[in-house]
């Protein structure tokens, strides 16, 4: 195995290469700025690897085709932005309830609606969690560099396969279109979905009780097993089931399978937090401003650290609570009106002040805006 060398590339390019490195071989999507480079590159790269690309009639169909292809055993992905992500919400629920692994890249742009069509934002944090109706858990990861675009896309596929779930890669225009060096190394680990080992007639695609991580094995269409995938209320076999106790069991499962595996799913990165009296907690493109602000503040003698939320959902409450306990104040820069800050507030003790730095004018938050808040706090 040759070691790959560093290349200079756009985030969207690294996302595509990450998907291919993870073993994805099917893409269905509908073009939308700022995600289209993922579709364009996938249309060239997938057939080179024997995979398949199809441009669907809309994003409703795109995510449906992705789910269908995954049920047929092929790792699948799509990429979109705001308006397209909104259209995907209904069938995202099919992937949740049908427990079909897939990866949805949302390169966030300004909203609501068509918004400032090509401009960056980080406003889909809550939509990623609650966009599709009903109670359920979800996994969302947010890259802050081109390297993370590559690494987290691979991780997104691994988590999708391991937990039989859609995983959202919550990127943003700044990271998707930014160019910097990254290394498309061979993945340390590639996880494939668990396949059944039982006798054919005993196979039940939704019988999670007693399984490792509470995840039932998934046989692909065309295997020696009969697989019944169902987005309506169903029993362990995938048969329609209107029993209320059954609904209770499964809806709790869509939530609890993430809660029980929080330690494995959640990833955060800490910078200079050991002696910190103040913390910056942020994600995605705003991490870059946060890191620059950290440096400036440290030069001025303010003891600041930074917690990067790599996993956005399930939300890293424990990790955030620990930092809030330690410091006197937390600054949360985000290109929305406080979606992450609201989650932090849930676990922030009274002794810790909480400030948001919020922009929705599609301008990146500057390090100086963060610095000003830290200086004000430290006086």
């Amino acid at each position: 195995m040759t070691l790959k060398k560093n290349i200079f590339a756009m985030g969207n390019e690294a996302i595509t290469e990450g998907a291919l490195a993870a073993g994805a071989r099917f893409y269905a999507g509908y073009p939308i700025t700022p995600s289209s480079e993922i579709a364009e590159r996938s249309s060239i790269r997938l057939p080179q690897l024997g995979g398949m690309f199809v441009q669907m009639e809309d994003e409703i169909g795109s995510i449906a085709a992705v789910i269908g292809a995954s049920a047929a055993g092929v790792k699948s992905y799509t990429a979109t932005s705001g308006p397209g992500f909104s259209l995907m919400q209904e069938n995202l629920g099919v992937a949740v309830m049908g427990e079909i692994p897939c990866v949805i890249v949302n390169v966030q742009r300004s909203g609501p609606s068509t918004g400032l069509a090509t401009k960056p934002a980080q406003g889909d944090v809550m939509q990623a969690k609650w966009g599709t109706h009903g109670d359920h858990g979800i996994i969302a990861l947010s890259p802050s560099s081109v390297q993370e675009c590559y690494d987290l896309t691979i991780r997104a596929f691994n988590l999708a396969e391991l937990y039989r779930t859609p995983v959202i890669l919550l990127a943003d225009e700044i990271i998707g279109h930014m160019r910097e060096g990254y290394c498309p190394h061979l993945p340390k680990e590639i996880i494939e979905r668990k396949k059944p080992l039982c006798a054919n007639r005993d196979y039940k695609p939704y019988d999670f009780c007693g399984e490792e991580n509470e995840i039932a094995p998934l046989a692909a269409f065309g295997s020696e097993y009969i697989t019944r995938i169902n987005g309506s209320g169903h029993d362990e076999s995938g048969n329609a089931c209107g029993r209320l106790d059954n609904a209770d069991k499964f809806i709790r499962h869509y939530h609890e399978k993430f809660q029980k595996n929080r330690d494995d799913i959640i990833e955060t990165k800490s910078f200079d937090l050991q002696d910190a009296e103040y913390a910056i907690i942020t994600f995605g493109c705003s991490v870059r401003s946060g890191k620059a602000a950290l440096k400036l503040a440290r030069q001025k003698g303010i003891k600041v650290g930074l917690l990067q939320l790599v996993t956005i959902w399930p939300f890293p409450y424990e990790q955030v609570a620990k930092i809030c306990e330690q410091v006197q104040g937390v600054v949360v820069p985000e290109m929305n009106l406080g979606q992450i800050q609201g989650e932090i507030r849930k676990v922030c003790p009274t002794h810790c002040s909480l400030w948001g730095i919020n922009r929705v004018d599609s301008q990146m938050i500057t390090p100086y805006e963060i610095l000003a808040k830290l200086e004000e706090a430290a006086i």
Partner: protein
Amino acid sequence: MNYMDYLKTQDFPLFWCGGCGNGAVLGAIVRSFAALCYSKEETVVVTGIGCWGKADDYVTTNSFHGTHGRALAFATGIKLANPKLQVVVLMGDGDGVTIGGNHFIHAARRNVDVTAILVNNYNYGMTGGQYSGSTPLNSITSTSRYGHIEEGFDICQLAIAAGAPFVARTSSDDPLAMQRFITAGLNKKGFSLIEVIAPCPTHFGKNNGMRNAADLMKWVKERSISVARAHTMNEEELALKLIMGILTDTEREDYGSKYSRVIAAAQEGRRDIK
């Protein structure tokens, strides 16, 4: 194979009302599977949401029960990911050509190798008999109490115009024609559509003075003509007629086959797919 092998008889009785056309269509489908000796493991029945969309509850093959109107889009992914699978898509007129109209025309145009069996009962059975994109002008439905002011689609013509290589129409009281067309559709490489006109006595029938399935089928029969007869009639005479039979049967390379040439070109470093 025996057609009963494809039926989940343990889940009978069927959920559908007495006089509903769905049971007969399901019968024709499993008979076609049996005639073609389909392996259950290599067959996927994809359904939408509606009364007809519950048909997957009763088959023993693989199944995929998704969302209202999106069955063809799910089926597209299933078929493209594994071309060895026989992918059969069951949709109502609401599913197929109303909420799912966009997927319908594009699946036909794209020529994905799946067989769509669309049961047209001229209304939304499941939700209480509201009008759909195929409801005829002047019909009474739960949401057109003064008479429907829109024209309904001719579903077969829509599929033909969109490029479907195989399109046939029959009614649920003609089991032989259903089986013949479904078998032909399953054998067809490319997108095939079989529209089955079926009674919904509970809503469409009741709302329009046709209390039982026989009355409804009489109404259908009165409007039905064969493809051969249709050739002898002019446009005016054909208005409001239902042409029954195989309306189109042509050869057109399907998306999956074409795409394998894209793969070959990409792997050989060519930019043309000759």
